[in-house]
C-alpha cells in the first residue's frame, strides 16, 4: 500500500517535470514575444528600446539557462515576476485561486446534488417517460457549449429579473453573493451533473439486477429503503470517477464561464496571460493546473482503493 503510494508520487514528479519542459518549449516557439506585445499598445517604437526590454527580461539568454532559472526559482518558491504587471507572479496568482476554487467546488457540489438523485430516479424508473426525459436532458447538457449556456443564462436574468449575477467584489446582500457564485457554478456544473447522472443511472441498473438486492427485497425491506441504502452506496464510485475525469474538463468550462460572468479567477487569467505572452505567468499557471489535476487523480485513486477493497488487491 505504502509502496504503491510512493511509486505514484514518484511518477507524479516525473510527469510534472515533463509538463514543465513541454510548456516551456511550447511557449518559446510562439512567434512574437512579450516585447512585441508591449510595443503593440504603443504602435512602433525604437528598436533599441525594444532590445533593452528583451535584455532586461532575459529573453536573449539561451533556452536552457532560462529554463534552469525558472525551475531553480520554483524550488525556492520564487515564481518570478510578471512581465506585464512587474509584480511577483505569486502575488498575482494567489488571490485568484480561492475564487476559482470556490466556483469549482460549488460546481461539483451542484453536479453531485443534482446528478445523483436524478440518476437514481432514472434508474429506478427505467424506461419510463421520466427516464427518457432525464436522459435526453442530460445528453443535451453534454451537447451545449458552456459559454453559450452562460450567455443565455445572463440574458435571461436581465430580461426576467432585471439583475445580473456577475462578479462583484463586495456583494450588497447575501442573496447577491449566492447568486454571484451560484449561477455561474450551476452553469459550469450542468455538464458534470449530466455526466454523473448517466454514470449513476447505469451503475444503479447494474446493482439493481444483482442478487443481493433481490435478497434484501425478499427479506421484506421496503422498496425505497432497498434502493437507497444498497444501491446508492454503489453510486459513490461513479461519482468519484467523474470527479477525477471532470477536474480537467471543469477547468475548460471555468475558462469560458469566468470570461462570460467576468469572474477574476485563475482560469480567465490564464487566457489573458497567454494573450500577453506573459511567459512567467503562463508557465506557472499551467504548472499549477497540472499539479491540481495530478493531485486530484492521485486522491481519486486512493479514494477508490478505500471505497472498493477489490482495487486494493489489484494494486
Amino acid at each position: 500500500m505504502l509502496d504503491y503510494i510512493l511509486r505514484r508520487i514518484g511518477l507524479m514528479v516525473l510527469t510534472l517535470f515533463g509538463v514543465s519542459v513541454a510548456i516551456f518549449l511550447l511557449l518559446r516557439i510562439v512567434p512574437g514575444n512579450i516585447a512585441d506585445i508591449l510595443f503593440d499598445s504603443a504602435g512602433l517604437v525604437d528598436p533599441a528600446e525594444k532590445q533593452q526590454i528583451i535584455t532586461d527580461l532575459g529573453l536573449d539568454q539561451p533556452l536552457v539557462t532560462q529554463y534552469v532559472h525558472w525551475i531553480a526559482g520554483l524550488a525556492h518558491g520564487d515564481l518570478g515576476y510578471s512581465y506585464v504587471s512587474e509584480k511577483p507572479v505569486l502575488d498575482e496568482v494567489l488571490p485568484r485561486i480561492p475564487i476559482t476554487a470556490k466556483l469549482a467546488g460549488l460546481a461539483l457540489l451542484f453536479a453531485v446534488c443534482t446528478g445523483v438523485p436524478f440518476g437514481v430516479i432514472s434508474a429506478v424508473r427505467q424506461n419510463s417517460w421520466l427516464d427518457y426525459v432525464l436522459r435526453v436532458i442530460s445528453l443535451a447538457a453534454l451537447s451545449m457549449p458552456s459559454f453559450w449556456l452562460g450567455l443565455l443564462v445572463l440574458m435571461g436574468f436581465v430580461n426576467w429579473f432585471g439583475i445580473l449575477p456577475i462578479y462583484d467584489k463586495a456583494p450588497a446582500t447575501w442573496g447577491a453573493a449566492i447568486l454571484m457564485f451560484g449561477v455561474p457554478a450551476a452553469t459550469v456544473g450542468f455538464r458534470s451533473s449530466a455526466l454523473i447522472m448517466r454514470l449513476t443511472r447505469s451503475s444503479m441498473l447494474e446493482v439493481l439486477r444483482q442478487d443481493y438486492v433481490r435478497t434484501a427485497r425478499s427479506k421484506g425491506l421496503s422498496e425505497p429503503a432497498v434502493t437507497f441504502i444498497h444501491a446508492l452506496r454503489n453510486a459513490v464510485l461513479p461519482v468519484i470517477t467523474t470527479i477525477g475525469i471532470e477536474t480537467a474538463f471543469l477547468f475548460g468550462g471555468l475558462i469560458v464561464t469566468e470570461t462570460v460572468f467576468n469572474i477574476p479567477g485563475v482560469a480567465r487569467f490564464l487566457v489573458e496571460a497567454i494573450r500577453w505572452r506573459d511567459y512567467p505567468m503562463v508557465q506557472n499557471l499551467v504548472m499549477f493546473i497540472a499539479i491540481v489535476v495530478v493531485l486530484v487523480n492521485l486522491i481519486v485513486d486512493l479514494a477508490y482503493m478505500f471505497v472498493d477493497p477489490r482495487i486494493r488487491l489489484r494494486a
Partner: protein
Amino acid sequence: MMRSRLWLTVACLLATMGTAMAQKKGGTLRVTHRDNPPSASVLEEATISTIMPFMSVFNNLVVFDPASKLNRLDRIVPDLATSWAWSDGDRTLTFQLRDGVKWHDGKPFTSADVKCTWDMLTGKVNGKLRKNPRKTWWFNIKDIVTNGDHEVIFHLNDPQPSIMAMFAGGFSPVYPCHVPANEMRTHPIGTGPFKFAEFKQNESIRLVRNPDYWKPGRPYLDAIEFTIIPNRSTMLLAMVAGKFDLTFTSDLTPELTKSLQEQAPATQCVLQSTGTQGNLLVNRDRAPFDNEQIRKAMVLAIDRKAFSDILSRGTFEIGGANLPPPEGFWGWSKEYMETVPGYGGDVEKSREEGRRIMKSLGYGPDNMMQLKVTTRNIPDYRDAAVILIDHLKSIYIQGELEPLDSSVWYARLARKDFSVAMNVQGTSIDDPDVQFFENYLCGSERNYTSYCNADLEKLFHQQSQMKDIDARRKLVWDIDKTLQADGARPVVFHAKAGTCWWPRVHGINIAMNTIYNHWRFEDVWLDQ
C-alpha cells in the same frame, strides 16, 4: 404676459435651486473598462486603456478647456502652468508654474519636474522610460531651462504653435522626478485630483480622492473604480442592469450605443470621434503594386459610404487624413471635399473606371488578380478588411484575408512585409503636425507605405510654423488633397463610438474630436 413672466420666475427659481442642489460630494463612480491596460504609465503607453483610468492621477502644464466640446488650439487653459508667453520670434515658450502644489507622496512640485519630464520625452535622459511612443512630437525642442522653482523655459528650433496642443493632450502629464519609472508603471504618483489606490491585473483599477488637491473644493467623488470586462456582451448587460455608472469611453459601436439606449432608455449617450481612421496600405515597393495604375484602380473600388453604413449605420465620417468637420477642425469642408478625386460620390462610375484599368493590365472576370489582404486579428480591423475584400472583387481582385496576431502585425508592418493591408490607426490629438509628422514624413517609423514626397515635406514644415489659424487650415487642406490624390495611404473612414452614463452621473463633458482628453474627473459628481 403676466403668465409668461410668472413662468420665467419659476424657471429662474428652479434653475437656482438646481445649482444649489448640484454638486454633491462623495460616492464611488463605477466605470467599465474594456481590457487590461499594459501599464499605468501614461507617458509610456499609447492606448486609451491607460489614459482614461490614469489621466486623473496627473496634471498637465496646460489643458484643453474641459468645458469646451472641441479640443482646439485656441481653447487651451492653465493647469499646472498658470500662464505662458511666447518670445524670441516665437522660438521661446515660458511657463509660470503654480505654487504650493504637492505630489501625492507629499513632495513639492517644482520646475525641475517639468524639465525632467520633457528631458525624458525628448530622449535627452535615457533609461527612465521603457517605451517612448511619442518622441516624434517633441522633435522641435532644443533645450529646457528652469528659472527658479516656478518658471520653466522651452527653447524651440522653429516656431511651432501646435506644440501647445501637444502639451494640452492627455498624453502629456508632468511626471515626478523623484519616482523611478517602474514605479510609475505599477503605482503612479501625480499631482492630480485622484490618487492611485490599486491596480489588480485583469480585474480592476481603483483611484481615491486626493484630499490635498490644489484646486479648492475638487474633486467631488470619493473614489473611482474601473472594472475590467473584456467581454462586451457581459459589459453591456452589466450596464443595462445598472451595475455601472459610466461605460468605458468609445467602447460602444454606434449600433451598440443605439441598442443600449433601447434597453436602458434613461442612459445618456454621446457618439464622439475616436480619432481612429481606417486606411488602406498598399506596398508601393512590391510588384505588381509598384504600378501606379493598379493602386489607382484599388482606390476607385472603395465605396467609403458602404464602409460607414455597414460598420456604423452611416455615422462614420468621410474625409482625408485630418478629421473632417464638424468634429474635426483641420479636415476638409464638404465643398472642398467634392474637388478631391475619388470623393465624388458615384461609386459605380469609379468602379467602371477601375475595371477598365484592370482590363488594360490583362485582368478580367476569368483572370482575377489574387492577393492577400493582411490585417490585425481584432474585430475593428477584421470587419473593415472583410468589406475591403468584398469591394475589391468589383475590379477583378480576389482577396484572401490574412489575419495576424497583434505582435506579428506590427513587426510585419515595420518590415514592410505585406502587399495590401487594412489598417485602423489612432491619432490622439486633432492636429496636422501630429498627423503629418507621424505618418507621412519620408522615413518616419509609422510611414508604413514608404510614401515620400520632398515638396510636400516642405509644406509640412511651412504649415507647422504658421500662426494664422485660418491660413494654416487652407494649406493643410491642400496638403491633404495631394496626399489622397497620390494614394499615399487612402483614408477610408473616420470612426466614431459611443460613451454612455446613467443620469445620476453629472459633470461629464465629452470632447467631440478626441477620446484621449477630458478624463480628469474632477468636475464629476454623483447624485445619489
